[in-house]
């Protein structure tokens, strides 16, 4: 299983991400945690939601960075995991989508960034509310962790603890 950075440390990833193409023949294995595509999950969760009974563990979802979450905000806020895919590291839409989830929709579960995410972005992503980072294969997780440790002070704080620049400094 690949490693991810979770809450500042490197751990084995216990979640399995299901791509859209895999959902046609998909049936959940016992005791496995799954991250499902949003549209597939919506299909399962619609109606009385009994389709989700086939899962031992409540599944999470993954979305693209530019996914509009407003229509599903309430339902998503109860999920254990939301993963946001970065199509290109230079496309920062996901930073705002993540921040919005935490700040406006009150999402408290695991928020992970995956796809084209580079080590040099993790400290900013963390401040936007992400707590798990699944980096590109060629990215160095130790480098990423070191950047998390070395970024202490900021003018904005984080989504959990926002501040104005001069707060506590006058």
């Amino acid at each position, binding site marked *: 299983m690949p490693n991810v950075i979770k809450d500042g440390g490197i751990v084995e990833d216990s979640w399995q991400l299901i791509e859209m193409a895999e959902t046609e023949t998909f049936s959940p294995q016992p005791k496995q945690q799954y991250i499902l595509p949003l549209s597939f999950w919506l299909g399962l969760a619609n109606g009385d939601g009994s389709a989700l009974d086939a899962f031992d563990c409540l599944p999470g979802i993954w979305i693209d960075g530019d996914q509009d979450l407003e229509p599903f905000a309430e339902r998503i806020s109860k999920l254990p995991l939301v993963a946001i895919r970065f199509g290109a590291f230079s496309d*920062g839409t996901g930073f705002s989508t993540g921040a919005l989830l935490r700040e*406006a929709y009150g999402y408290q579960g695991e928020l992970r960034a995956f796809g084209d995410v580079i080590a*040099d972005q993790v400290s900013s992503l963390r401040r936007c509310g992400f707590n798990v980072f699944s980096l590109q294969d060629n990215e160095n997780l130790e*480098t990423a962790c070191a950047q998390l440790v070395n970024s202490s002070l*900021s*003018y904005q704080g984080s989504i959990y603890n926002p501040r*104005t*620049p*001069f707060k506590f400094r006058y």
Partner: protein
Amino acid sequence: MYQYDDYDRQVVSDRVQQFKGQMDRYLQGELSEEVFLPLRLQNGLYVQKHAPMLRVAVPYGMLSAQQLRKVSVVSRRYDRGYCHITTRQNIQFNWVEMDQVPTILEQLLDVDMHAIQTSGNCIRNTTCDPLAGVAKDEAVDPRPYCEIIRQWSMIHPEFAFLPRKFKIAVIGASEDRASIQLHDIGLRLIKNKEGNVGFQVWVGGGLGRTPVLASVLREFLPQRELLAYLKAVLRVFNLHGRRDNKYKARIKILVKALGVANFKEQVEDQFNQTRSAEYLLDDNELKHAQSFFQAPPYEPVDAVQIEAELAGLRRHNLLFDRWVAYNVTDHKVPGYAAVTLSLKSAGQAPGDISASQLDWVAELSERYSFGEVRTSQQQNLILPDVKIASLYALWRESTQAELATPTIGTAADIVCCPGADFCNLATARSIPVSSAIQQRFTDLDNLYDLGKISLRISGCINACAHHHIANIGILGVDKGGQEYYQITLGGRSGSDAQLGKVLGPSVPADAVADAMTDLFQVYLNHRNSHAETFVDTYQRIGRAPFKEQVYA
């Protein structure tokens, strides 16, 4: 002037160390070119034609004597003994070595300077009225708010990878000397009927390929809500701005596509959703920010006597008289003036300044202006607080330093980007065109007779010299491998900003100066009095007579 505290130093120092690490990883092959590109841009480092270029931020155009001396040292030690003042009030070093950049950044940190976010698709250096704090027409000093925005925008976690660059300008006077309508966000400080301070918020201005003047987004935003509102605008842009086409990625395109009303609705929604107390500025913070921009200890003077003495000196010295007429600006305090040190002397690339001139300016500022200097969008330097009684001495010294060219606001005060001589993006050179035009002004009386004219030259469509808002704009274009120049007329900056219109087909490089002579001649022939400026005459008589003359 703002002074870093330990907090600022730590934030900037962390960033310098981070960039140093990134540079090491790049040089060792751990970071690919593609990944390193946006990281270095966010730290001000471009790769240009001949050498890397480092753009250093001058927050809202304020520099101390100590900072100028450091810039001088850096230009001697790591560059070729000069640097360049940009149209966004920053400083560029055009000949640095890539691997020395982290060292340069460490040295700049010694004097509270940095190069963070001077490039890349992020929030750029906030610009401001170069006469902030001393202008007669100022209602509220914008600098404390600029400093707050400087800090808030620096290494903002959410807005480092925007669809495109994002520029903010702030003014507090009735005349707009920072061109807020050309910015992604323009802020005008005002006092409402109740005497409360707030901002008129403009959005969606910008030049480049698709020049657009900004629209009003909010008539009055209470000052304490500034950062919460900026966050809302930026978030809407980051979520919905186009990323499929670099030329359609600025916020101006989003605002146009949605319409101002719809865009505003989205911003207000976002604002209402996430305007928690932690994002609001409290009075203590505002007071703290304001405390750095208190008026210097001006000396009370006998204004009448000083004016009389000045008039006497001007009568006896024509050169001094000209300099006072063109390079000296009124000040809100009696007995004081703001002085523009010209970086437009003949034979000099507009905005370039040598290391020894930097040292001169540092010294002049300490002796005559409380040790403080401003950079202007017109690529000159300003000493904001000069005693009128010292003008004569300052004139003599600045003349020696070749900083007293008495042409501010005239056609010889040309604004010019580095062009294809340096810049990778440029399609044509701009500096040689500028000097060819300059050479036509050997007789100052002829130049003065033309009155106020703004002339700006951009070497490509990115419009760094802001040619669209010049009375006469010149844009370099490539025509089958040849340098050609498109001329626009009728642009204006300031509160009545207007975009210029294309005169006709572009002309070859060696015909540009002649075309200028033609334009000036048409103006002289048609103006109804000396008081009617070039652009007013153009407005009255239209394009045809100018076109006829240039293409005859």
